[in-house]
């Protein structure tokens, strides 16, 4: 349990978070998905919700509250999945396919 309280854990968390965001940026550019600021905002909010859900489960287990971990995990998990599907659809708005966007002579 010491690991989760250590600065090293948060250092690792920070690196992982940056990698996820960078990876997503590369993915969006690769797939021609436009990412205006409001999509980034929604994405960060959704990631915070996901992080909250995972942290809630971990904290509840650490406190010996298995019931809270299961019920809270299911409750917040459902919210994460539903909002994730909604977010995915929003993110895909304005996506250009390569074929259509590419110049005719290329």
């Amino acid at each position, binding site marked *: 349990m010491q690991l989760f309280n250590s600065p090293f854990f948060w250092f690792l968390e920070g690196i992982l978070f940056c990698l996820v965001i960078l990876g997503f940026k590369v993915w969006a550019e690769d797939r021609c998905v436009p990412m205006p600021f409001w999509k980034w905002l929604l994405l960060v909010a959704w990631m915070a919700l996901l992080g909250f859900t995972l942290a809630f489960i971990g904290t*509840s287990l650490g*406190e010996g509250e298995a019931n*809270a971990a299961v*019920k809270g995990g299911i409750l917040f998990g459902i919210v994460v999945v539903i909002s994730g599907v909604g977010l995915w659809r929003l993110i895909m708005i304005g996506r250009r396919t390569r074929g259509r966007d590419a110049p005719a002579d290329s």
Partner: protein
Amino acid sequence: MKSPELTAELIKKIAHELGSTLVGITRLNPDWVYLHPLTRRGFENVDEPLEVPKHWEYAIVVGTPMSWDPLYANPNYGTSMDAYARSRIVAARLVAFIKKLGYAARPHIPGNSYDLMVPPICVDAGIGEQGRHSVVITPELGCNFRPAVVTTNLPVKPDKPIDIGVQDFCKHCKICAENCPAGAIATGEKVEVRGYRRYHLNAAKCNNFWNSTLGSMGCRLCIAVCPYTRKANWLHKTALKVTTNDPTGLSDRVLTGLQDSLYPGPDPQSYYIPSLGGENASYREPPWWLKTEDFVDM
């Protein structure tokens, strides 16, 4: 002493150094001194009214938490005595310190070596607010603490009562009342008791249950189930911040509902011993080191 402000700063630092988690200071309201001495205190005539000594001008409250795991395993495995013992030592050492400064001081330690009501003194000293269950709820430890008081004539700057939203929260949350095996905690509104408004506690019912349990004496279930008695981690600290700063009262209801469904306890009747129709249940499993049967041949 140079000034009451500086003295207050010093006393608080010393109390923390001596092992106290909480410390607050107030002028002693004589209304909080018992009219008569408690029995078992060695007074020859307990019918003779207590006279408030002149040097009981100020009250310094110290407090330490009860061990968390046993607290959650009440009524069978918890004890108030671990925290009372710690607070008692802090108070006694603080008294020695104040006397060395040349002032009078006396420790008051519940359960039997004290002459005053401690919860209202805690409220006056800004330690916390009194909840529906009559126990004081602090921002740092919820209601998981046991106090001791030092009365003194050392001139010291008093603290002010605090408002952390307990009064509003208790209006909607009745978790302690619903989980009290003895039905001792009121579910209704506050009533006036000797000129002060508070939730009524049926002390006789509570005391009867305390004396019927098989564990290390007592109950403390109302403390264990109270939403404020959660460890000070990010989750519960955030919940506390939200409820304290939400004037609509909506978050109080949501969080009370969540507390009910996420942290349920056994049926209140099951806390009774089998001969009284219960199952000798505990709110939570005891920690491994309290399972006597794992260490001692029974």
